[in-house]
């Protein structure tokens, strides 16, 4: 068993709301500076930069999980994690079928830049990634689980785009191994939202800029870096949340 200091919710320049400086090499460098051994790339409704960040991390000792932050029909954000970039790409094809048609307007939403491992632009995603797919929370969870992935509902303690705010209650029997808190400590979140007690609660940065990376991390005891090992650690609560109070600020 090895302890991995992890930040499993990081956006790249592909997310229109993230900084253009969130290039694969910049993300890897910031993660290493923050002492992380494991990150996940989770852009809004896309996995287009996952493979580039994985390639940028090769040989550095940093592990990069493939992921995506899906916005459901109910405007709930769900972090979806996969074993491989290939599975994430497969999920992306499905998500793109369920995204509303509509082009990004960079002047309103920001740019959606696809990059290679060196951080060079390889293209721009033209469809608007900030939108709700035509799939409900349960449908997304079921489909991601079916692809061998897991879902961690994002920042459930925030007032917007959160499972708890938008749906009021955690749907009974929702097959997710843990929930992510994005603002408070797990203890403070449980006190404020009694519905959270009994759930494994992890923290992540939801980084949109390099300086955000590592401000909220979780140290997982893992047998290996894969979804099955992560799921076991979550269910057995073999993890510890570490919040950098000085940097725990949100725009």
């Amino acid at each position, binding site marked *: 068993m090895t302890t991995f200091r992890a930040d499993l919710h990081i956006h790249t320049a592909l997310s229109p709301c993230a900084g253009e400086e969130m290039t694969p090499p910049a993300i890897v460098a910031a993660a290493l500076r923050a002492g992380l051994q494991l990150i996940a790339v989770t852009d809004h409704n896309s996995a287009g930069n996952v493979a580039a960040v994985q390639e940028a991390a090769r040989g550095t000792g940093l592990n990069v999980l493939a992921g995506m932050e899906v916005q459901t029909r109910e405007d709930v954000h769900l972090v979806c994690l996969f074993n491989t970039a290939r599975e994430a790409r497969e999920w992306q094809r499905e998500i793109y079928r369920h995204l509303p048609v509509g082009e990004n307007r960079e002047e309103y939403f920001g740019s959606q830049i696809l990059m290679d491992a060196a951080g060079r632009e390889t293209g721009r995603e033209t469809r608007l990634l900030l939108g709700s797919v035509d799939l409900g929370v349960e449908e997304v969870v079921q489909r991601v689980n079916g692809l061998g992935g897991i879902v961690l509902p994002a920042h459930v303690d925030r007032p917007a785009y959160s499972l708890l705010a938008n749906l*009021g209650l955690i749907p009974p029997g929702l097959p997710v191994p843990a929930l992510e808190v994005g603002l408070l400590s797990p203890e403070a979140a449980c006190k404020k939202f009694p519905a959270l007690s009994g759930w494994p609660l992890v923290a992540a940065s939801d980084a949109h800029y390099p300086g955000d990376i590592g401000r909220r991390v979780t140290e997982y005891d893992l047998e290996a870096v894969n979804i099955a090992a992560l799921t076991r650690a979550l269910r057995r609560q073999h993890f510890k949340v570490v919040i950098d109070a000085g940097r725990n600020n949100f725009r």
Partner: protein
Amino acid sequence: MEHLNLQVLAGEKALDREVEGGYCSDLISDFMANGGPGCLWLTLQTHMNVVAVALLTGAAGVVLTGGRGIPPEVCRKAEAEGLPLLSTSSRTFEVAGRLYQLLNP
């Protein structure tokens, strides 16, 4: 019913309930905090939790606005619990305006 252009999806037997007021919200947590007994809830959310929270708060009923697709299990649950569940293709703004006029003649 006809004044508001509503279709009944569930809870027909309880349609004679007194409606004391209305509340418009698509954040279910917001209705949990601010909705209450006798309140008619106008929302475009069609998640199962709408039914649970309407029952929890003692809402008079729920109007699902905007003509979105409604999962059949949501209607079944509302029917089983005797909760009036109504739908309309009209937008929340329009339904709320008409409801306000009816309640404050």
